[in-house]
């Protein structure tokens, strides 16, 4: 069975989804989904070990060898992301049952879990596959389920947000499709490995240049990179809390993965970083994103909105790390990928707990919560500190490497700007802290109880992970380093 793990990774949640329909009882479905997600997590651990021990795993679907058939290809980078996504999904799912009770009508609970599993399967599929058209198909699976999940939000604005996301997302996907078509036209293959061998032959053509440009724009739409981020804040804010926690931690990560995978493994670094002034553009946009989104976050009255904007800013950090174009820079991006997933899922899940109790994510509703929901608020504080990048949290680790990477390149002003950007994080995190701890609760809300244990456990698992990986960084750093080195080493 071990040899089949790559496909099992994707197919287990994929097939479990329709199976849920047969189970029907929401409780059963929840348990089942949990088991499925958990086993995906276990599989990803095993895969990571295999990859670290024996190098890249290639798996031919249907027994057809690539490039004729579709290949699944797990290298260090993809194993790393598989692990992140399945882990987050499992933990978030723990809290799902209780959270959706108040946010989604009971008759749609089963459907919710199905969509959740499909979304998970889609993302895993994108990461595991080694075929660019397959990427598109799975991208659509994950996107379509994400649109539906967002539309399940209670607020009617969720529908509108979902629609906007759908339009933007589809434009992005179609752009990627165009890019795939152009690449196929020039090389006659769809396999990534094969492409990377054949693309250099046609590297000087304008067609490939167009393909590259389309791919970058398409993926940046999915990535919500500034200035193509407009769909994200609303989509995150009005989606059910669980969905937000899950998507915020995973969806944009997958897009970053695609960006890295295509630019490094498919187009090759030498092409990617010379065809367009990509470094400069990304650096500028990344920095702008950090500042604009962080500033926007400061002025938000809704905490979900606030963290959504903060997500855009954090994507900016990843883009900056990517644009540095060195091993350390990429490593910083990968670390931040991991770390940001931990932070944001913890934060949004804790927000979910707050919404569960007080039914609102407005900042004004947070007054006095520090005393009434001490554990939840403490989780938000730790998550916030991690966002700022305080030592002993994960946020610090990635910030450290990001700065180190910029200084290695002699980009002092960038380093200063990055640090200044994190000052903005202090401001928006502290707005929450002050409201929660130093304001008397509004009289209208009355007595609020601490969130139920079903919430606290997953939230604190994530918070503990935030601290643990901030203290014991061996795993994340080792893998991130290995992945980024192999990306630089393998690519021509």
């Amino acid at each position: 069975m071990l040899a089949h793990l790559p496909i099992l990774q994707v197919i287990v949640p994929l097939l479990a989804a329709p199976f849920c329909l047969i189970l029907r009882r929401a409780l059963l479905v929840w348990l089942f989904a949990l088991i499925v997600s958990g086993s995906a997590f276990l599989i990803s651990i095993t895969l990571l070990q295999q990859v670290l021990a024996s190098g890249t795993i290639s798996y031919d679907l249907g027994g057809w060898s690539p490039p004729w058939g579709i290949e699944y290809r797990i290298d260090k980078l993809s194993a790393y992301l598989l692990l992140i996504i399945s882990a987050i999904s499992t933990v978030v799912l723990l809290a799902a049952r209780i959270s959706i009770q108040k946010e989604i009508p009971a008759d749609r609970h089963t459907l919710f879990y199905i969509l959740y599993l499909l979304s998970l399967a889609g993302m895993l599929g994108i990461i595991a596959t080694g075929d660019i058209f397959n990427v598109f198909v799975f991208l659509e699976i994950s996107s379509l389920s994400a649109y539906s999940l967002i539309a399940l939000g209670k607020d009617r604005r969720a529908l509108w947000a979902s629609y906007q996301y759908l339009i933007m997302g589809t434009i992005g996907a179609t752009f990627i499709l165009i890019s795939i078509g152009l690449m196929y036209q020039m090389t006659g293959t769809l396999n990534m490995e094969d492409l990377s061998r054949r693309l250099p032959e046609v590297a000087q053509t304008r067609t490939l240049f167009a393909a590259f440009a389309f791919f970058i724009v398409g993926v940046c739409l999915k990535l919500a990179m500034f200035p193509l981020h407009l769909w994200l804040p609303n989509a995150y804010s009005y989606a059910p809390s669980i969905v937000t926690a899950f998507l915020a931690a995973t969806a944009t990560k997958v897009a970053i993965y695609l960006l890295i995978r295509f630019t490094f493994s498919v187009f090759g670094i030498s092409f990617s970083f010379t065809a367009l002034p990509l470094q400069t553009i990304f650096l500028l946009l990344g920095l702008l994103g950090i500042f604009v989104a962080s500033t926007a976050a400061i002025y938000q009255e809704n905490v979900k909105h606030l963290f959504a904007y903060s997500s855009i800013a954090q994507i900016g950090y990843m883009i900056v790390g990517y644009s540095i174009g060195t091993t350390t820079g990429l490593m910083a991006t990968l670390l931040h990928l991991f770390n940001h997933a931990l932070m944001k899922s913890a934060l949004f899940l804790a927000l979910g707990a707050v919404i569960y109790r007080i039914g609102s994510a407005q900042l004004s509703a947070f007054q006095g919560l520090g005393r009434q929901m001490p554990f939840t608020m403490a989780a938000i504080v730790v998550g916030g500190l991690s966002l700022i990048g305080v030592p002993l949290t994960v946020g610090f680790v990635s910030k450290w490497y990001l700065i180190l990477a910029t200084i290695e390149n002699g980009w002092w002003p960038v380093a200063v700007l990055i640090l200044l950007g994190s000052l903005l994080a202090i401001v928006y995190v502290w707005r929450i802290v002050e409201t929660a701890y130093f304001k008397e609760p509004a009289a209208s809300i009355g007595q609020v109880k601490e969130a139920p244990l079903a919430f606290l456990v997953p939230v604190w698992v994530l918070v503990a992970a935030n601290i643990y990986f901030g203290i014991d960084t061996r795993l994340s750093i080792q893998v991130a380093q290995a992945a980024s080195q192999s990306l630089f080493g393998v690519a021509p």
Partner: protein
Amino acid sequence: MKDLFAVVMLSGIYSLLTASFFVAMDAVDVAFTEASVGAGIFTLLMLTTITMTGRYERAARHKPTLALAVVLATGGLLIYGTLDMPYFGDPQAAAHLHVAPRYIHDSMQEIGVPNIVTSVLASYRAFDTLGEVVVIFTAGIGVLALLSVARRPEDDAEINSVNDSMHEQHLILRIVTKILIPFILLFALYVQFHGDFGPGGGFQAGMIFTAAIILYAMLFGLSTARRVISQPLIRLLTAIGVLIFGGVGVVSLLNGGNFLDYNVLSDDPVAGQHLGILLI
């Protein structure tokens, strides 16, 4: 054009034209699909939606300059990209030289099905097809999740009344359709089982099948349609459809091969049913 009905009809015609273009380009399978999906299902879905959301568009108050600029930039980039493309129809183009020849030359021995498209679809790139089925499934679940709660009784009544009023206007259409539907269904079955040899196959068949159902629903009211095909049944069928496809893979997995490694063509007979779910 402010009348959405006309717009929809035009886009249907556009799809049909596209389909015929596909035939000209030797892509008969695709043409089949485009005709049934683009011209058939899409139009039907659009019409259903328009009956619910209103037929006329308000005057746009947008300033299209920015959009125009974006579009022009994109188009410019694409045209720029075309400059280095191989010429249209050039048999020496890279796309025809690398992977495709194997499909053309060896698929008969390896798969045993004359229709290369089918063999590629169902075997070489079967996983894509599984993905596609799941996409449909996802969309189906999504639509279900969105619309099932919305269907409060009074809504139902309202929509039905809208539908009913429309139906009465199209009495002739109704009768014609009634006669047509059995033929459509028969045709679907034909396409299904001849997929191996002629163009078409399970999916297109399903599409046609669904088109028939949607047509039925359109003209006889949703409630009637629902009576004919019960909702849980379709749900179950959908789930089973996906499971069968995946199940084939799993079975081959258990037998020691790689996932989806089957040498016998096993198309997905119920894939089309997934669209059926869109009705509900």
